């Protein structure tokens, strides 16, 4: 019930910020309407990183506590993270085309890092599909998830060295948060969108976790049924 309320609130806030972002906030003077892509784009990128952080921490949790619920959290994080990574790349490309003139800009370190991020976690999800035994799957996935998370900062750092810097991160630099160059309404819309997306993320994470738990339970039942049928065939003989 609580989850359902969270879902409803998430939906309403996303709908509200969509209307605000598209219709209420004025277009950017330099970039025009394309700048509106920034709101969901930044929110998606933030959630992508958050999801993969959750996956890494939950992976360590599994190796440490041997609790399959941890593995369900890790799965939820990876799957939802891949979705938001895809959104972030897609939004970035749609913005890049009118602003930079190209869909793909090799000189932007964050774009290339994010593309590798997608590759790392798609591999993670494929690996999970190929392993049948739940505990073995959890271990393999946990380790691959942790190493991927360790790799991300190195990738980011090396790509940043590789090519000169482009648009530096907007929110990360503290003086721009305290004294934003953008008018307050832009900042508020961005923060609102990030908040709305994060609520949605929380809702999706809970639902995906519940689904993972259910499918684990079903796998277990199927395994027991198999054992029972083998056993009864033996008895009958």
């Amino acid at each position, binding site marked *: 019930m609580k989850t359902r309320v969270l879902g409803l609130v998430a939906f309403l806030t996303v709908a509200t910020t969509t209307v605000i972002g598209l219709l209420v906030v004025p277009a950017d003077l330099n970039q025009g309407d394309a700048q509106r892509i920034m709101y969901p784009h930044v929110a998606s990128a933030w959630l992508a990183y958050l999801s993969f952080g959750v996956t890494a921490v939950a992976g360590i949790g599994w*190796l440490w506590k041997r609790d399959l619920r941890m593995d369900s959290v890790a799965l939820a994080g990876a799957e939802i993270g891949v979705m938001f990574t895809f959104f972030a790349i897609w939004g970035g490309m749609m913005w890049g085309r009118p602003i930079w003139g190209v869909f793909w800009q090799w000189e932007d370190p964050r774009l290339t890092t994010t593309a590798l991020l997608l590759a*790392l976690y798609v*591999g993670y999800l494929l690996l999970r599909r*190929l392993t049948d035994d739940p505990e073995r799957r959890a271990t*393999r996935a946990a380790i691959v998830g942790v190493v991927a998370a360790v*790799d991300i900062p190195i*990738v980011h750092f*090396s790509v940043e060295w590789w090519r000169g810097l482009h648009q530096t991160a907007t929110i990360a630099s503290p003086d721009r948060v305290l004294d934003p160059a953008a008018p307050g309404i832009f900042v508020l819309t961005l923060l609102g969108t990030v908040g709305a997306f994060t609520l949605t993320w929380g809702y999706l994470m809970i639902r995906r976790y519940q689904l993972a738990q259910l499918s684990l339970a079903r796998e277990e039942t199927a395994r027991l049924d198999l054992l029972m049928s083998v056993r009864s065939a033996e008895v009958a003989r």
Partner: protein
Amino acid sequence: MSAPIIEARIALAIARKDAVAELRGRHATVSTLFFAAIVLLLFGFALGPDSARLADAAPGLLWLAVVFAGVLAVNRLHLLETDDGALEQLALYPVPRRAIYAGKALGGVAVMLVLGLVVLGAVGVLFAVDIGSAWAPLLATVVLGAIGIGAVGTFYAAVTVRLRAREVMLPLLMLPVLAPLLLGAVKATAAALAGDPFGELGAWLQLLAAFDVIMIVAGAATYGYLLEDG
């Protein structure tokens, strides 16, 4: 004997076992060397015949060939262990897991070193790049690159060796992780060949070294879990 020395001896014994098997059968080195040579030839066809363009692209082609062949090499080194339950035997040894990882990684690094040096020579010949004048930084780059690919490859080969689809899964998991290594090694090689005009060579070698250390630590810390129920 103190514990680190014993662990080092265990690692060397495992590496020696791989080396003996390799020298007798030559499973990993010969086939992967030919593979790397074919990759270089195909790069030549894809980008040639303009020799200036090929020489420009040489650092990138060198490391792509090494990385692609490296995926095959580490896979072969771990396939050795799937015969006759050898991997289970390895897991049953009452020794620290990181020593087993170090041994397997050492074997992988040795193969990668041979591969890297031969491919470097082949690139020098095929793409008319003067590797003699910058041999010291090039050697350092190849050594650091070989360590990185060996360390990462050993780890991912252990993840995928028992999968049915390991031929696809190993490169799929391993290549994105190797991206910073590829980037650093290509940049270091290009800087070394150009005589390091911007003084950036040291920074790229440091990046490679940092990558190697981080991946070795990550591999040593997690290999035990893979041996036991991965």
